[in-house]
């Protein structure tokens, strides 16, 4: 019931991150605008240090702060990849933001605060922590989308994101209040105990009602159809550096939230939410893949592709088995890494006054710079799910888990739409390799060595992790306690 010193040890990475953010704010306040690079490298240093703290922490699973904070293998695994992806996001953003005079300290602070929110979210042990962690993440994201405040497109995107995000938070809270009303506790573990017992009781209706609202809220935060309306506008409207961030790491955190809520708290109601998630998954796969075909803007196309990938992710969650959760977790991590590379390559091609966000901007990239054309090829092929890349094994595992759980028709639907979806990824590859370039000169790459290296590593990682996916996969299985 009370606070003990062991709690601080559990929360050490988060506490360090919070104090480090405050230090970054103080440093950014006193330095001159010309020295803004200091904030940039300091922020990356903070994320790396937090990552080290998460990795070296070998303490046993525990719950701290009266059950508010959960320290377990799933949380650790998700945190490692959230932090890794964030490092890539920072590195990609530097030149892009500088070219647009958006290279301000606030970008770094808000991203760091969002990372703190995600870390708390995946470690949440209570409905209250889920809510405050989520708000910390989304509030930072709203402001980030509006980073380019003089652009009407950016402001419109931020407004849509804010209104729909607030609505989603309201729906989620309403669901939580009903769950609380039915079970009388906010603690996820206790809810699990009570909710499982309540099958057939008079509270069942109230629980089911709360569950519907929770699933709708989760769908909103993921961007799953039919709650996906905000996603394309926000992805297109925000600066690409911000899109890279909100399109990658938060998906890992959203998986953590969905898993904690649905399995951790309401595992006993799996027959109900399994079906709801299956419907969301099919709709997302259909809408995401079909509408993406019609897009000419790459950012918009990737937004619809996100919706379809969320469909796959939900397919893994809908199983309700540990191997299904492990597959969904693997998928969330794979998607975050692929998405970071995809938006990173847009930022590589972008210059001052040129966004490189149309698919036509990639025309003949192979003749202008073969290596980066190959990196984009790896990213697109991985998103499409072509073996032996990372994305293929992520899809394969989800489908295998779905088949094991006896969801044959869902697996068939997923495969059909994955093949439909391959079309628009392959179109980007076709444009790069077979269309004549609009200008003959070689690509003027930004003089940003870290950006080139990290993007190359990120692209190569898709191939490497596709060939050697074993360790990560067994880590996911171990964390979920699946065989």
């Amino acid at each position, binding site marked *: 019931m009370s606070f003990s010193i062991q709690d601080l040890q559990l929360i050490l990475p988060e506490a360090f991150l919070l104090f480090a953010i405050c230090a970054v704010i103080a440093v950014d306040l006193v330095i001159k605008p010309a020295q803004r690079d200091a904030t940039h490298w300091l922020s990356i240093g903070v994320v790396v240090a937090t990552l080290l703290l998460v990795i070296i922490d070998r303490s046993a699973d525990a719950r701290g702060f009266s059950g508010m904070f959960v320290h377990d293998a799933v949380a650790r695994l998700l945190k490692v990849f959230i932090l890794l992806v964030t490092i890539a996001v920072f590195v990609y953003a530097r030149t892009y933001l500088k070219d647009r005079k958006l290279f301000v300290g606030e970008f770094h602070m808000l991203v760091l*605060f969002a990372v*703190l929110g995600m870390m708390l979210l995946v470690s949440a042990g209570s409905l*209250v922590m889920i809510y405050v962690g989520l708000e910390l993440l989304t509030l930072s994201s709203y402001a980030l989308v509006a980073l380019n405040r003089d652009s009407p497109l950016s402001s419109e995107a931020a407004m849509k994101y804010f209104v729909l995000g607030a609505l989603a938070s309201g729906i989620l809270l309403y669901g939580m209040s009903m769950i609380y009303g039915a079970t009388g506790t906010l603690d996820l573990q206790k809810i699990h105990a009570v909710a499982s017992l309540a099958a057939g009781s008079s509270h069942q209706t109230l629980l089911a009602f709360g569950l519907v609202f929770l699933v709708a809220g989760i769908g909103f935060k993921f961007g799953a159809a039919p709650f996906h309306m905000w996603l394309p506008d926000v992805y297109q409207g925000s600066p690409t550096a911000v899109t890279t961030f909100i399109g990658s790491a938060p998906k890992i955190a959203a998986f953590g939230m969905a898993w904690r809520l649905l399995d951790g708290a309401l595992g006993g109601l799996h027959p109900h939410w399994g079906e709801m998630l299956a419907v969301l998954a099919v709709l997302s796969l259909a809408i995401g893949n079909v509408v993406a075909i019609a897009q000419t803007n790459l950012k918009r196309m990737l937004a619809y592709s996100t919706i379809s990938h969320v469909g796959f992710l939900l397919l893994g969650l809908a199983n309700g088995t540990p191997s299904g959760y492990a597959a969904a977790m693997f998928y969330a991590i794979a998607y975050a890494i692929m998405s970071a590379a995809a938006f990173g390559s847009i930022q590589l091609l972008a210059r001052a006054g040129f966004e490189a966000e149309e698919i036509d901007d990639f025309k003949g990239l192979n003749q202008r710079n073969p290596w980066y054309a190959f990196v984009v090829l790896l990213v697109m092929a991985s998103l499409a799910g072509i073996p032996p890349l990372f994305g293929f094994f992520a899809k394969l595992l989800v489908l295998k888990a779905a088949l094991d759980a006896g969801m044959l028709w869902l697996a068939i639907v997923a495969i059909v739409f994955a093949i439909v979806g391959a079309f628009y990824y392959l179109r980007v590859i076709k444009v790069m390799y077979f269309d004549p370039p609009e200008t003959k000169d070689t690509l003027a790459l930004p003089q940003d060595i870290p950006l080139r290296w990290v993007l190359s590593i990120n692209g190569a990682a898709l191939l490497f992790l596709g060939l050697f996916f074993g360790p990560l996969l067994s880590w996911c299985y171990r964390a979920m306690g699946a065989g």
Partner: protein
Amino acid sequence: MSFELILFYLFATVLTVAALGVITVKNSVHAALLLVLTFFTAAALWLLLQAEFLAIALVLVYVGAVMVLFLFVVMMLDIKVEPLREGFVRYLPIGAIVAVVMLVEMLGLIGLKTMSAQALPADPAGASNTAWLGKALFTQFLLPFEVAAVILTVALIAAVMLTLRRRVGVKSQDPAKQVAVKASERVRIVKMESASKGGTP
């Protein structure tokens, strides 16, 4: 049906109708006034549950501070001066209705208090509402409480980022410079030729 239950249904109806009004009426000042009524009725419902501290806090913070600020903003948005002056008479009816409904709710609560001294079982530990809340906030809910503080910090940073514009030519004070000023910088002695008596005025 006890008096308490009747009051609950009364408050619940007022709350729902007022909340619906907030999102349906066209006039933004009416909407703001109805929002005041919504908050007030929610506070009355909490009083019914004997959550006195929360109810008072809701009235003080939301009705007292936040909503007045809201009303200011809403009225400022209408830049024309004439309608602002007419405002008092125009908004009097809705304001009066809101006030009367609030009065009825308060009287109902006082009536309940006199009719039944013990509506709900009191806390067996004998701790007051406020003490219990304070204890829970700083023991069981310490972590979310701190995170809420972080969320407020983010809101602050975001607000500054989105609204602060450094325009050239804006005159502002720099206290450090003001303090460090020397006497020689304050007074400038200018040598002038003395003017003759019959010179220009």
